[in-house]
């Protein structure tokens, strides 16, 4: 009756496969600073938008082409054969400092974690969510790139100690990093819990965490000097290298998958990802999986009252009371939600996963966090 899919173990089926080059790229540009305009030509790797924050990485065209359509939300590029590309930057020979960080940011890396020192660096090598095997695939196949990424992270963060956390069923080593075995069961793969497994502390100061997907992206940039224009994602148990902006329609047709009306298509993980509303939506930077969930697989989410069954509380790894917090959020009492530990939540989704009434608890929690952030009262993002 209660089917639980918590396992993070994965069986790798072959290597990382490529996807046929898409004809069209669709990039979400909502809230970004645009760097191109309609009907302009872009080269492969050219910046199309920048992140408004201090540290967020820039966004690049994953192929050469022309901007066909541009609105508040989307930027659509029609790809061409010109193959025009930007020149690689020589990242590897740069000395650590502001300039290196700016260059990395310009190449699409989020530099928040890299821009200050820390004593301990934890590399999260766990598969992020059930049904996703990207992390393990990268550890198995892309060691060279990961090492390059770690090298760069080391120069910038200058940690005294580096620990790689991996599933206790697997043996992977990164040079110079000690290993920590973690039970491969969701939610143990979440950064906060991995850090706790390694250090024994909750949200410790002076510790930074990076996952292998980010490390891989960093390594790739260091090795090639080219911006990030692709992401590795698990689809139906296999891993693919997908250009950012590839439409879901294209992915589905390449992989011969069928979607019918009423189904849910998820970018990102099964627990934390986002359901897309159109097949024309493109893959985003950092997406590590795509799921197609037929409409009759799970009972519908319903916005109904809580019956106080307690399942969400008993399943919450952050030891907070999602039933209370979601109700506070529902009635816009965000400060009360905050008082009751809203910011301890690391959005694992287990509360909503196990809710008897199928309340959208995680949605309420994210809503409360967003509202607090927007009103500038949030102490922490």
């Amino acid at each position, binding site marked *: *009756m*209660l089917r639980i*899919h918590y396992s993070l173990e994965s069986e790798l089926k072959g290597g990382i496969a490529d996807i046929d080059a898409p004809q069209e790229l669709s990039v979400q540009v909502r809230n970004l600073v645009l760097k191109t305009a309609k009907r302009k030509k872009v080269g492969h790797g050219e910046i199309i938008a920048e992140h408004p924050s201090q540290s967020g990485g820039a966004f690049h065209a994953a192929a050469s082409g022309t901007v066909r359509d541009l609105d*508040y*939300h989307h930027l659509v590029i029609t790809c061409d054969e010109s193959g025009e590309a930007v020149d690689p930057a020589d990242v590897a020979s740069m000395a650590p400092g502001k300039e290196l960080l700016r260059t990395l940011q310009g190449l699409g890396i989020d530099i928040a974690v890299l821009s200050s020192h820390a004593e301990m660096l934890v590399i999260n090598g766990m598969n992020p969510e059930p049904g996703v095997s990207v992390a393990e695939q990268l550890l198995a196949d892309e060691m060279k790139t990961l090492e390059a990424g770690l090298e760069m992270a080391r120069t910038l963060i200058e940690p005294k100690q580096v620990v790689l956390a991996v599933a206790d069923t697997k043996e992977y080593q990164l040079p110079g990093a000690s290993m920590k075995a973690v039970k491969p069961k969701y939610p143990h793969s979440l950064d*906060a819990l991995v850090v706790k497994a390694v250090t024994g502390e*909750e*949200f410790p100061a002076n510790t930074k965490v990076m996952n292998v997907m980010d490390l891989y992206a960093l390594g790739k940039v260091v090795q090639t000097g080219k911006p990030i224009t692709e992401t590795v994602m698990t689809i139906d148990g296999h891993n693919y290298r997908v250009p950012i902006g590839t439409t879901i329609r294209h992915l589905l047709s390449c992989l011969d998958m069928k*979607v*019918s*009306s*009423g*189904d*849910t298509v*998820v970018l990102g993980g*099964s*627990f*934390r*990802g*986002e*359901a*897309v*509303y*159109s*097949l*024309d*939506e493109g893959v985003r930077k950092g997406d590590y999986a795509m799921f197609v*969930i037929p409409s009759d697989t*799970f*009972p*519908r*989410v319903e916005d109904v*009252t*809580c*019956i*106080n*069954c*307690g*399942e*969400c*509380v*008993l399943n919450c*790894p*952050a*030891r907070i*009371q999602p039933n209370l917090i979601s109700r506070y959020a529902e009635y816009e009492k965000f400060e009360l939600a905050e008082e009751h*530990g809203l*910011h*301890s939540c690391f959005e694992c*989704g*287990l509360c*909503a*996963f*196990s*809710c*008897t*009434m*199928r309340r959208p608890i*995680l*949605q309420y929690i994210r809503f409360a966090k967003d509202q607090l952030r927007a009103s500038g009262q949030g102490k922490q993002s």
Partner: protein
Amino acid sequence: MTPPIIKAMSDIATRLTVSPAPHWRCGRTLNSMMRAHLLALIPALVAGIYMYGLSAAATVGLAGSVAVLTEVFCLKLQKREIDVDNFTALYAGILFAFLLPATAPWWVTVVGAIITITLGRTVFGGFGCNPVCASLIGWAFCRLSWPAAMDIDLNLANFVINEPLFQLQKFGVDTLSQFNYTDLFLGKQLGGLGASQVAALTVGGGFLLIRKWIRWYIPVSFLLGVGAVATLFWAIDPGAYAPPLFHILAGSTMFGALFLATDTASSPVGKLPQFLFGLIAGAMVVIIRVYGSYPDGVPFALMLTNLLSPLLDRVRPKPFGGR
């Protein structure tokens, strides 16, 4: 803030469902939960009918249907969606019936079932919002209004066996030798028509526990509470107080532990609060049985402890990262 209107993308041939994360769910629903609970009551119902005959079946049927009809009526009045197909009203009605003597007059059954739904649930906002287990409200109302009609020993006087807790209260420990534990466990005791079928209830409750529809914290701590306090009294004077095992097997202790105390809305949500809740309720059961004027302390003990739930839920661990 009004969100900007985003133009629908060209494709409308395939309309996807957009829903919030998580996209996988454990598959529990209220409906499946209530169906499991109803299923769990069947052994005790069968045992009750076997023991008391068709009048037991009639009482359960009447209480169940009146509860459902009342719920429909109340939802109609409130202009809410009629969702009795989630079985919660039926379940509350049957739980109420389980506490009745099998031969309870029909009008008591009807009034009790109506009270269960109206005063037990609707006035507080419906299912899931009741601070006290709804069926117990119905029971208490009837018990206080028509003591004679609700009195187990009086109603079932034509049976050869007796109500153990009544015997204990009125005639003292010495009379308890007429009961042996196996008989008590097998339900050979007078009591609520379903509430004293200890073995059958254990089977049903065990099913709920194994299927994880209820957690073990409340039932186990409830029995621990009963056992501990009973042992205390018994140790003080075995001549004046009944042994702990008697308290666990007699009356509706098991029914309370597995079905009444685990009522979702009126019990606490956290692990430690649930455990404390069970302990306190269990302890109260024995205290009421020893000092109270009603033979079986389970319903009143639970109602009182239900009121403590919000307080108990304040016993919570420090959130992750402990600020």
